[in-house]
């Protein structure tokens, strides 16, 4: 895999160890992620891939007993420094979760939420952003006539695309996706995958997935985790055709997992 210059690194973990209480969940992880790529984190359940994803926007801060050693660098800055405001950080880093979690508000209000909590009151700007974000997440044509309807009335796949639109409205440069399609049917899944492919032009995307085919289809690079270790990190093509480690080979071919 090519070496990245400092400028090319969007996200980086340096000697990262993460603990929940006494239990170590990530062991000495080092990774550098290039801007405008899709990176997939794969590995069996409990291997630490979700925990790792959540260190990039500090969502683990609320987990009791969370502790980390080493550094997480985003855009050249250590995000666990005291002077970093975690709310500002999260505006730059959008997150999409495993289960669609729209707020119990209208479709419009869901997408406008991020702007409103920032104190933006300009109606025209909000309306434009809502439309743009819904178009970006390929949901606009399906909902443009009932923006006032409750977001909870949408189907699961639509809800998930709404959650993506909600994240995009803040114009982040990074999107973290935690198994975004695992609760969806195949058609919705393929819509989300197409979307990820398009969003790559503007965003750096990191996606945790259980689905190996999915990782193969949509990602440029793949990182394989096992029991808290980053076993192998390389171009997706290489990982899936000619991995260096036997453990990766075994997982990819379905011999365990």
């Amino acid at each position, binding site marked *: 895999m090519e070496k990245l210059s400092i400028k090319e690194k969007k996200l980086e973990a340096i000697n990262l160890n993460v603990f929940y209480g006494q239990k170590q969940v990530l062991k000495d992880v080092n990774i550098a992620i290039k801007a405008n790529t899709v990176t997939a984190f794969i590995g069996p359940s409990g291997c630490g891939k979700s925990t790792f994803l959540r260190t990039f*926007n500090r*969502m683990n801060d609320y987990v009791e007993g969370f502790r980390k050693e080493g550094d997480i660098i985003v855009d050249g800055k250590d995000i666990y420094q005291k002077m970093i405001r975690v*709310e500002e950080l*999260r*505006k730059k880093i959008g997150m999409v979760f495993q*289960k669609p*979690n729209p*707020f*119990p508000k209208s479709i419009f209000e869901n997408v406008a939420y991020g702007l409103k909590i920032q104190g933006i009151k300009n109606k025209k700007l909000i309306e434009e952003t809502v439309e743009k974000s819904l178009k970006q997440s390929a949901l606009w044509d399906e909902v443009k006539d009932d923006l006032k309807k409750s977001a909870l009335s949408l189907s699961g796949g639509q809800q998930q695309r709404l959650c993506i639109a909600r*994240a995009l409205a803040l114009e982040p440069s990074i999107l973290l996706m935690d198994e975004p399609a695992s609760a969806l049917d195949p058609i919705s899944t393929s819509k989300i995958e197409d979307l990820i492919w398009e969003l790559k032009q503007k965003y750096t995307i990191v996606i945790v997935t259980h689905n190996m085919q999915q990782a193969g289809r949509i990602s440029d690079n793949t990182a394989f985790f096992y029991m808290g270790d980053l076993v192998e990190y390389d171009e997706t093509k290489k990982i899936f055709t000619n991995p260096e480690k036997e453990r990766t080979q075994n997982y990819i071919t379905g011999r365990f997992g």
Partner: protein
Amino acid sequence: MKRVLMICAIITVLTTVGIVYVLFSESFSFFQQVSLWDFLTDTKWSPISTEKHFGILPLLSGTLLTTFIAMIFAVPMGITIAIYLSEYAPKKFRYYIKPLLEILAAIPTVVYGFFALTVVTPFLQGYIPGLAGFNALSAGLVMGIMIIPMISSLSEDALYAVPKSLREGAYGMGSTRLQTSFNVILPAASSGIIVSVILAFARAVGETMIVTVAAGNMANLTADPRETVATITAFIVNMSTGDVPQNSIEYQTIFAAGVTLFVFTFLLNSISFYIKKRFQEKYD
């Protein structure tokens, strides 16, 4: 064994039916002598003086006045406590403080009544000119303290039940804890909170000892919280402890007042039941 259980259930149901029957049959004979129109529109209530008036309005206004004072105090306070406990307080603190709050609800209401009469009223008289010795204000405030645990505890349950994924969604977009609590969690739990408020309202309407002890017993059509008032419940207590002959018109007023109260709380409970059924957000 099964039969014993069934008998227990039947006894409860029969008692309820019996109470409702007595209430309505006694007030039926009352309404044969006093027209429903007079009962609802006469602005004077004086069933035991020589010039008799049977207008429920002064008692109703006394009841609503004390209840509203209680609600104005208890609703913001109760919901704030609920948000603190559910969203801010460390787990351990919540674990100990919640049962403690519920103990507040276990204090006998007559104790609250004396607290209002002997502590709150003299204290307030130092600040509010024209505050009567028995007044709606202190009775209402103390009644508010009494229903706070009910609001905070039920609302806290509703807030706590909002799924973690919604909180994460809000935090993930850069919301602060305060924004998350007020913009996302509170609306998501609104049906449970409204139910808690209505139940507390019904509790305040039916509350007896605090208002009997601290608000006085003078049927008074007023909206001034400094004045002495009588609530429906306080009237019933005073009438029942006095020596009115059975089957007299005075005796039957107790039941007419009781029916009014019953209809009131029954409606409130039905509304809360309906809201619970209808508006509860479904999260799986």
